């Protein structure tokens, strides 16, 4: 019984961290699906989302507003607006001018953008960790009090539900709305979509904006969950999320969700049953194995050579 509770606890830990990987992975996978480039600055957009949310929360506290729903909604909206504008601006400044060139050029431009944003926040906000208030506290417990108890915090539940809601809304948006249909058309054939009268530049901008908005949601959630942020925390999260996107099949939205959850659970199970030292060895080993046997990732479609 105790072993089972332990297993469930590790599963919950893994699913929580996996959901946040998935939220960030969306930004990588959508951009790749549409213009076939890897936006390495996406982790920084997520970090900027977390900083904006913190600034908004601090500002509200200074104004004396203490009602939780208001704080959360205002922080979320501010973070989404700032991150989306950043996402849009990054595409406009660093990617659009080099679009259609050799694949390496946008990639290098993205890495440059990532380093630029990281250092910009270093300078603007200082390089130290900044505390993030835990706004949602408490949780449920299972199991008897004198032995091992499985606990789920309200924060973990919030993360999990928010991710599910965002993913569902995004899937509906892509499959039902006009812009979503245009997105799919652009991802199938950019040139043809252009010929048929779709404003592809607008669609590509929209993709960056949506990805950045979801990264901002993840930024706020993870800031509250971990309680501290620093200018580098987007880099590592971005790397993991990118791995999740590749694992699930880059370009596929359900793939990002699946990849995120698998990566999160693999990490927590490795730390839980083997040793934390092997966490990255196992999760990246898993990635290599999957790519060896299924190069397009778990849910990725085999790429059809465009003529």
């Amino acid at each position: 019984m105790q072993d089972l509770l332990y297993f469930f606890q590790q599963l919950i830990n893994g699913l929580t961290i996996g959901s946040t990987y998935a939220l960030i992975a969306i930004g990588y996978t959508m951009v790749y699906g549409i213009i076939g480039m890897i936006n390495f600055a996406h982790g920084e957009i997520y970090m900027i989302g977390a900083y904006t949310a913190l600034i908004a929360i601090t500002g509200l506290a200074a104004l004396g507003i203490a009602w939780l729903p208001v704080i959360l909604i205002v922080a979320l909206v501010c973070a989404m607006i700032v991150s989306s504008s950043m996402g849009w601006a990054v595409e406009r400044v660093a990617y659009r001018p080099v679009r259609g060139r050799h694949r390496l050029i946008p990639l290098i431009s993205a890495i440059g953008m990532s380093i630029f944003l990281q250092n910009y926040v270093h300078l603007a906000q200082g390089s130290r960790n900044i505390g993030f208030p835990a706004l949602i506290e408490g949780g449920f417990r299972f199991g008897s009090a004198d032995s091992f108890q499985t606990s789920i915090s309200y924060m973990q539940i919030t993360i999990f539900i928010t991710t599910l809601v965002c993913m569902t809304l995004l899937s509906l948006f892509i499959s039902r709305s006009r812009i979503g249909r245009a997105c799919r058309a652009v991802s199938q054939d950019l040139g043809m979509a252009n010929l048929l009268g779709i404003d592809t530049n607008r669609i590509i901008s929209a993709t960056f904006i949506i990805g950045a908005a979801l990264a901002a949601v993840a930024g706020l959630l993870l800031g509250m969950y971990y309680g501290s942020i620093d200018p580098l925390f987007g880099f590592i999260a971005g790397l993991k999320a990118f791995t999740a996107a590749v694992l699930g099949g880059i370009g596929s939205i359900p793939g990002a969700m699946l990849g995120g959850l698998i990566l999160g659970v693999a990490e927590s199970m490795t730390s839980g049953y083997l040793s934390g030292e092997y966490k990255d060895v196992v999760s990246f080993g898993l990635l290599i194995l999957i790519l060896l046997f299924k190069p397009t990732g778990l849910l990725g479609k085999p790429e059809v050579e465009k003529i």
Partner: protein
Amino acid sequence: METTVKKLVTAVSASVALMGAGHAAAEIKIGVAGPITGQVAQYGDMQFSGARMAIEQINAAGGVNGEMLEAVEVDDACDPKQAVTVANRLVNEGVRFVVGHLCSSSTQPASDIYEDEGILMVTPASTSPDITERGYELVFRTIGLDSVQGPVAGNYIASLNPERVAIVHDKQQYGEGIATAVRDTLKDAGVEVALFEGITAGDMDFSSLVTKLKQADVDYVYYGGYDPELGLILRQSRQAELDAVFMGPEGVGNKNINTIAGDAAEGLLVTLPPAFDKKAENQELVKAFQDKGEDPSGPFVLTSYTAVQLIAEGIEQAESTDPFDVAASLRSNSFNTPIGTVEYDEKGDMKSFEFVVYEWHSDGSKTPVN
């Protein structure tokens, strides 16, 4: 147009060269190398504040054998690669004495360069035993070793008769080194070490580790590493209601841990150098720091101050600014400093340096426990 620019450039470089020459004649350059940016910049602040004060006071008192000290401050960000870059920069600047570096993993590669180039280095903060194990002639420190700090922590935990202890470290030279020393001490004392595990520095999620600690039902957790990770571990342990006492080395003992962990930092045990700023004979110096609006209570402020003072007194006693003469004078004399009487052994370690166990509080203050 082109010729004007050329003339200008020549004129400027000539005057720069002249200025440089002018300075070199009357000044002794002291390189101060530590993190100004990066994850552990708050320790760098302590180091720079201590070194600046010492240089200021020595110059105000007439300098060293009539020559003024001049600080050359460089930022290694606690990154070994950057440490090598800035060490080379100090070499190019003609610096012959260095106070630094802070992180053991930076001090180690930088000290190779200093030794090769004949530069004397005094680190005010690096505690890894390896640094002085290589038979270098010009490497000194004004702080104790992990091999001293580890046993202090291990013996303290053992004296509390714990049932099970877990040891976690960040897999870096400093963290793993000290964690190993603690483990060995505990084993010698017959205490069961239920878990010895590394984490990845820079990670944010330690929920799996915390769950494991809870399952192992440990009553003490020793963490070898720095405050950003321990802060998160403390906070996540509090959320998971892990009922264990945490202990860490001086790398976790700063107010940043309160920013991250909040109330969860209450009751954390930390081994630190004794509070030199509380000693009666240092009160005048403490007041000088306070007058400048600086806080002398950080663990590396007065060790840095001492590092500069030792270099200055070494030069005075050797009556030479040759680093090898100064090194010989440091080894053969005894110095009266704010951190007590300093005498060096052959390796460049202080003959005695003690660590004290403190209990940390959620407001960032600390009280000694023994």
